[in-house]
């Protein structure tokens, strides 16, 4: 099971809550980032298994983050997230190299396992 995680989201409150939820389920959050570019570096540099990436970020969007992470060596699996509905993004989620999409309110270890299995 993948158990080391990077959280990339510009909302600090969400990062803190997500960390508590995931840590309670046995995951280890190895890095956090508040924007896309530092997020790509953190994801590739930390050797994490998984990156949770918010789609709306202040610099580049989550799809671009997923693309850049996917292009790196030993890249972690990317899971996109948003407080918006998946349908708001049309086919962008399918077209991106991310493993899938989890609505923020439904983030849990189980939902991540389902996607990355």
């Amino acid at each position, binding site marked *: 099971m993948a158990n080391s995680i990077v959280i990339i989201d510009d*909302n600090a*409150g*969400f990062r803190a*809550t*997500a960390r*508590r*939820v995931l840590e*309670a389920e046995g995951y280890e959050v190895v890095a956090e980032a508040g924007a896309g570019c530092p997020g790509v570096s953190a994801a590739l540099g930390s050797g994490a298994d998984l990156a949770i990436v918010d789609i709306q970020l202040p610099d580049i969007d989550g799809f671009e983050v997923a693309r850049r992470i996917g292009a790196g060596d030993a890249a972690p699996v990317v899971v996109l997230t948003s*407080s*918006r509905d998946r349908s708001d993004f049309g086919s962008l989620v399918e077209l991106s190299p991310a493993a899938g999409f989890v609505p*923020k*309110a*439904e*983030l*849990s270890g189980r939902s991540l396992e389902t996607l990355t299995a």
Partner: protein
Amino acid sequence: MIGLRRALILIATAALAAGLIAVPVILTSDHEPAKVPLLVATLLIGWSFVGTGVYAWWRRPRNEIGVLMVLTGFFWILPALAASDVVWVFALGSFLSPVALGFLVHLLLVFPDGRLRTRLERWVVVTTYVVVTVMQLPGIVFANTQDPDICGPDCPANPLRPENSDFAFVFFSSLQALVGILAIIGLIVALVRRWRRWNESTRKAFAPVLWAGGAVFFLEGLLLAENLFVRSDPVEVVIFVATLIPLGAIPYAFLVGLLRTRISRAEQVGELVTTLTRRSESRVDLREAISEALGDPELQIALWVPDRGGYVDSAGRPVAVPDDGDRRTLVEHDGRRIGALVHGTPVEDPETARTLAAAAALNLENQRLEAELRSNLRELRASRRRLVEAGDAERTRVERNLHDGAQQRLVGLALSLRLAGSKLDDDPEAAGELLAEASAELELATTELRELARGIHPAILSDRGLGPALEALTARATLPVELDSGSNGRFPGRVEAAAYYVVAEALTNISRHAGADRATVTVATEGDDLVVAVSDDGKGGADPEGSGLRGLADRVGAADGMLEVEDRPGGGTVVRAVLPIGQDEGQAE
């Protein structure tokens, strides 16, 4: 006008008297060989110039042409004094003998509108005046008047003349002749250039003057050249007599010219009126018709829009109208300003331009109304676009606020609650903490949603009306606000909403930009209007074109009202909206 007429009668009488005085002076002369021909030439030409000049002066008081013709006439008669045998009178007459030519050159170059236009024209006029006055002086001082080539043995001896001054005389008179020839060449070039600039009708009017004047100065040039190089008496006499014919014709040529200008003006106006009635009255046609009539292909029509206090073109776009009278002709109808003709080149004949403008005034008035309508439509479209843009921007702002604020809090809340649920059995204490945090978060989300909803539309405004809504608004303001709400009744929804947002936006602006300590809001009904004013004691200088106030003006405009923003004399700003109460949309019409 009576003053002018009396002055002109005086001038005519003076010319008559000057001519009558010349009669005995010439006839009793000891040295004048051709008394009768000189007398006839002096009186005929002199009186012709004064007579036609007085007429031209009377008909066109503001045009210099009449004055110049009168002066030419007088200075043509005065040199008769040179026939006198009294030495100083003889000297004065000799000195004045070429001055009339100076006025004549000036006259030729200002025809028909009385103005000099180019540097060359001004140079020619100034140089000629110098040649006929300043440069004439050395000749008077150094001339050996008893030399048959100059005057003759019977002429009074020159008392000023120093010994051995023959060379000085030749030098100065040759210099005068040379500069004179240069001035004449300049005159001919200037006349040719004018000719090229003119349209057919002006050419027709000017032709007699040009031919007569051109002939005079051509012969004058020959005479000067003859003086310099040939010096033969018979040739001189022939040239002089030949000069008299076109010279005598000049005043009548001017008269014909002035008359033809008037006739051609009448023709032009006639043509324009025919054109305007025959063609469809579209704006391109009107501009083209006036442009053709004036011979100014670059002519533009500017139409006055009183509401804007400025001019627009036929498409309703703002146009600049020059202050220079040469460049524009104002058009009025029944004493009201309608517009202006903006000339591509300085207008040659302002009277024709004015007459044409008057003839086209009615068509221009139609076009002006159309342009005013277009201009208003343009403004209406712009304000509609701004309102839609402002609406879109507001929706974007609300979506972002919802997404970044309440929605994020609710997402966090969902996660926290699930986490608390998972800990209830194993770690009830931690679950309790999580629930307490979640409760605080929920309260924040509720507050944010409430603020946001009120920002979209204050419920109290639609439920209870403007007075209570403004009380609530001013109570929440970040600075002390005095509310003087003189009318507590209800008004149509759009009026209440416009008034409310004027106050809300003005208070936001004051707290953000004005640096004010306090503000005052007054609401009153004045006649059929609801008047809302927000004033502050800040630094003033609000920009009515800034996006906030522009948006307010649009909103007030949509309610048929007017928004004014002014700096107060003692400091601070007043934003004032006048909103016609009228009827509510549902009841309207």
